[in-house]
């Protein structure tokens, strides 16, 4: 429980940092940290497949794509984003906290008992026995990541576009 609360607190902190950091590279690192923490939270809840997916795709692949793209987009002295006016920060946080409180309360009352009891499967049983389609998807996602990175980091052609 302590680990869960700690992870949730750090998750909120990293998401807030993601919104206010002026350096896009640090923001991307903050996003990766948020994804890792979310993965831990998902593992704690027993959602192993979602956790593995979050860790491999969101924390890994998407972050690498972000960092590569940000590095390519701007010169090193330009890697700052416009500063979010500080005056909006507290009202926005209060608004989102209020919305989250309302949603959690509403969902707690609205969620019915599952019609079909979800079986408590081990990670191996679920991953290899029930979600083989997603394994195919995962393999292709890794391939997309590899080709995507190679494509983004390749040498740019100097050829003319037209004759």
């Amino acid at each position, binding site marked *: 429980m302590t680990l869960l609360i700690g992870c949730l607190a750090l998750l909120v902190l990293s998401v807030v940092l993601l919104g206010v950091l002026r350096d896009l590279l640090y923001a991307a690192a903050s996003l990766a940290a948020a994804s890792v923490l979310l993965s831990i939270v998902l593992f704690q809840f027993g959602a192993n497949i979602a956790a593995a997916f979050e860790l491999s795709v969101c924390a890994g692949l998407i972050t690498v794509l972000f960092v590569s*793209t940000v590095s390519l987009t701007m010169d090193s002295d330009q890697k700052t984003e416009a500063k979010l006016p500080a005056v909006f920060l507290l009202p926005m946080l209060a608004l989102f906290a209020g919305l989250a409180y309302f949603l959690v309360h509403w969902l707690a009352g*609205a969620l019915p008992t599952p019609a079909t009891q979800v079986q408590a499967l081990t990670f191996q049983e679920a991953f290899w026995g029930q979600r083989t389609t997603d394994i*195919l998807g995962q393999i292709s996602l890794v391939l997309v990541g590899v080709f995507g990175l190679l494509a983004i980091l390749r040498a740019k052609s100097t050829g003319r576009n037209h004759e």
Partner: protein
Amino acid sequence: MEAYVGSILLLPLVGALVMPWVSKLGRRAADALAGAVGLAVLASCLALVPHAGTPATLQVLGTNFAVDGLSLLFLVVISVVGFFCTVYSIDYIGHYSGRAKFYALLMLLVFGLNGVVLVRDLFSLYVFLEVASISSYVLVAYNLEFDGIESALKYLLLSAVATGMILIAISLIFASTGTLSFAELKAVLSGGPNPLFLFAAALFFAGFGLKAAVVPFHAWLPDAHPSAPAPISAMLSGVVIKVAGVYALTRIFFGIYAAPSQVLKVFLVFGVASMAAGAILAYFQTDMKRMLAYSSISQIGYIMIGLGLGNWLGIVGALFHVVNHALFKSLLFLNSGAVQFRTGTRDIREMGGLENRMPITSVTSTFGTLSIAGIPPFNGFWSKLFIVLGALAAKNYVIAVLTVSFSIFTLGYFLLLQRRVFFGKLNERWRDIKEAPAAMSFSVICLAAGCLLVGVFFNQVLRGLIEPAARVLLGGN
């Protein structure tokens, strides 16, 4: 059938896997592999068309996939546009580096889209949607120019918001029902209205509406589509927004939620907004590809209207428009790519009189213009006619009048585009330019012929492809 479905799903994945090694044999080997994979997938899809009326569940590599009329319609659209975009790329992609990587990503995009239409489970749909989405982000940025990378980032960020909403909706559904299978969910959700399911429905609509670029979720599209290389613009406009948006919306709202009247009204309202806003914004554009991008938003509006009408004619019209829009919009994007390839600009104000220098591009572009405006006997006429007849059958005369009016408006701004680019006095800057290379011309000729032939033989297309798909939506299979 298993062999065909296996080919459709796995050939693009295997093609992407072996592409780095094959490309070492030379540029032509990479072109041949990409073309062969595209052709094999297209042939497999066409071989399935005679079985369109018989839904089948199939095992590929120990995994269940299912094909019904709706899946097959979208598979045909993906494979036709995918094949001609691949052929077009043989010449077009020459001025970019990394030919093999481009083909690999294009094949993975096709693989992801095919996966989306073949799975029968919400989470698997999400996984394959991500495969297609991540491939398309990279392909949008493929030119490594500032505008391409900026557009790709915008596309990625907005799509991430959409994905977040879709995932929350999937989580809520799974938490309350304990299943993600389409068939089981349909049985559970038919139990009656539930605020939680309605909340999930709103999230699904916003998430997939953003993927389909329905107004007001369209902000990413006018940047992403023009900045991408032309064959990718054609794939995005012709296929991706339909599979990631329209197909997912129909599969969920017709297949799982059984299309309640409130949902159909939402489809109608957002459809009209998209049709009108897209057309009006397209009129004011001076960038050729940006005009086409806004026009795609407008045409998605027609599809949403047809679905929102909820009757046989409306749904047949919407599904027919999915096929037709894929043909004529990919044709128009490929033509705009040919013009940019030769002139180096997308600015309509700098063009003029290109018809004598690029006659094939000019004639095929006229075919595309007449098709998108709904002029008989081109394909666009029939789908728009069915949508208007659907509106009249539903006694929704305002929608019928608006649909016809914006079709005329579409003809107006496309004729203006045609006149400014191809007709009139030749701009002296383009005195020495030539027609687009052979592979690019071949693709646009085939797509233009497709626009005409689908229009002339509309009855066969209707019976063989559209009606089985419409029966799935109305029967809710």
